């Protein structure tokens, strides 16, 4: 399947099962608007949405903010499920107070040892 978005740093694919996005590369200030666009294009999916960041080597603070903004806009009964191999997103969510129930993000971490 061709990528729904591609630039020098980042490629984004739509996924069907589970519905959501798979990202490969780096998400930063140069492509965070495109990332938001791809998230908004998922609108209408009937269930929880999944964003797979396991093949992403860098997620900027602003890009994480994009995820939070999108999650807060979801219908009340839906959640954003985020897969990551980095401990950094959880840390950023915590220090910004975005780990509270008001932000419907479920973070699934697969952290490798150093």
């Amino acid at each position, binding site marked *: 399947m061709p990528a729904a978005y591609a630039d020098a740093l980042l490629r984004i694919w739509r996924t069907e099962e589970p519905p959501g996005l798979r990202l490969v590369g780096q998400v*930063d200030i*140069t492509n965070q608007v495109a990332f938001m666009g791809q998230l908004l294009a998922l609108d209408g999916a009937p269930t929880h949405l999944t964003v797979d960041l396991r093949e992403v080597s*860098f997620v900027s*603070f602003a890009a994480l903010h994009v995820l939070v903004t999108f999650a807060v806009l979801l219908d009340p009964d839906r959640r954003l499920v985020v897969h990551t191999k980095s401990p*950094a997103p959880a840390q*950023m969510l915590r220090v910004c*107070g975005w780990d509270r129930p008001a932000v419907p993000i479920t973070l699934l971490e697969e952290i490798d040892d150093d």
Partner: protein
Amino acid sequence: MTDPRAPARPGFHRPAHHLLLYGGDPQFLAAALPFAREGLAAGEPVFIATTARNARLLQRHLGRQARQVDFAPPDWHRTPPQSLLAYHDRAHTAVGPSRVLGETPWLGLTSAEAREWSRFEALLTLALAATGAWHLCPYDTRTLPASILKTAHLTHPGLTSGVTHRPNPAHLDPEDFSAACDSVPLPEPSAGAAEFRFDGLDQLAAMRAFTRREARAAGLPRSAVENLLICVDEAAANALRHGGGTGRCRIWTTPTDLLCEVTDTHGTLNSALAGYLPPATAPLDGRGLWIIRQLSDAADMRSSDDGTIIRIRMRRMPPPEGPRLGEQPLPEEVAGLGGEAETLGEIGLDGAPPRGHGGEGR
């Protein structure tokens, strides 16, 4: 932004951040025990983060009541910004009034670290504003240097002795105190610092790759490398957005730390409070500096007409054992802080605070 007024505890007419000087167990207990007992009797959450010895002392004297008290784990105090957040979150989680006995771990700190913990004490007053939290901060006069004890008088709006609580006439405006902390010159970067210059957003990925290489070479653990990348990315984005469109990233190491500094040519940072206070829940702007302070082991942020400096420090290894405070010779004189000049000089606050008052110019 947190309300920058000194907090008055609900039902009280005094700021709720008090200094307790103690020279022995009786003096400590004479204040700490009634502080905890009165809180418990009023149904308030009581949290105690003190030395292992003082915790044991309180547990023994509180008897069965000790079970109602929440004692902090040994690693409760991490970096000053992280501790500021932890206390802020506790205060906001409590539904009504709450009490905290919080004893900062001063021993073994360098002068620069002690300065940041003093700043923490000053800014805690702001972070607790509009909460019902009442903090009592014990300082052991037997073990702490005179400079730390004297500076504590500048950072606490109230004084406690036994069951007596009164306003502290020596208290300085927290923003002025923080600005004075920033008047201490930063040490020059190492002559062998690696350098990366950037002038556009499309160069941030290459700057991160540069940073990753240097951090790996310095032996930083993976989690610290990731945190550093987020910090340096925020600092560089800040330089490009607000700093005139060009910037420079320099990285060097000391035996214990990696330092990563992003500079630009426009001084646009209001540094006295920049990134220190927990962001309010709703607004989402201006959190980049906050993230840098939370994810790093320390960060210095300075702004002048010449430009802005954001210097991020990541620890390469645990700090050496034993007291280091007072190791470095420090300037004796401070201009503009009146009778407390000598005190500030000893912990390195060797400059004048700005004449402006808190709350202006932001």
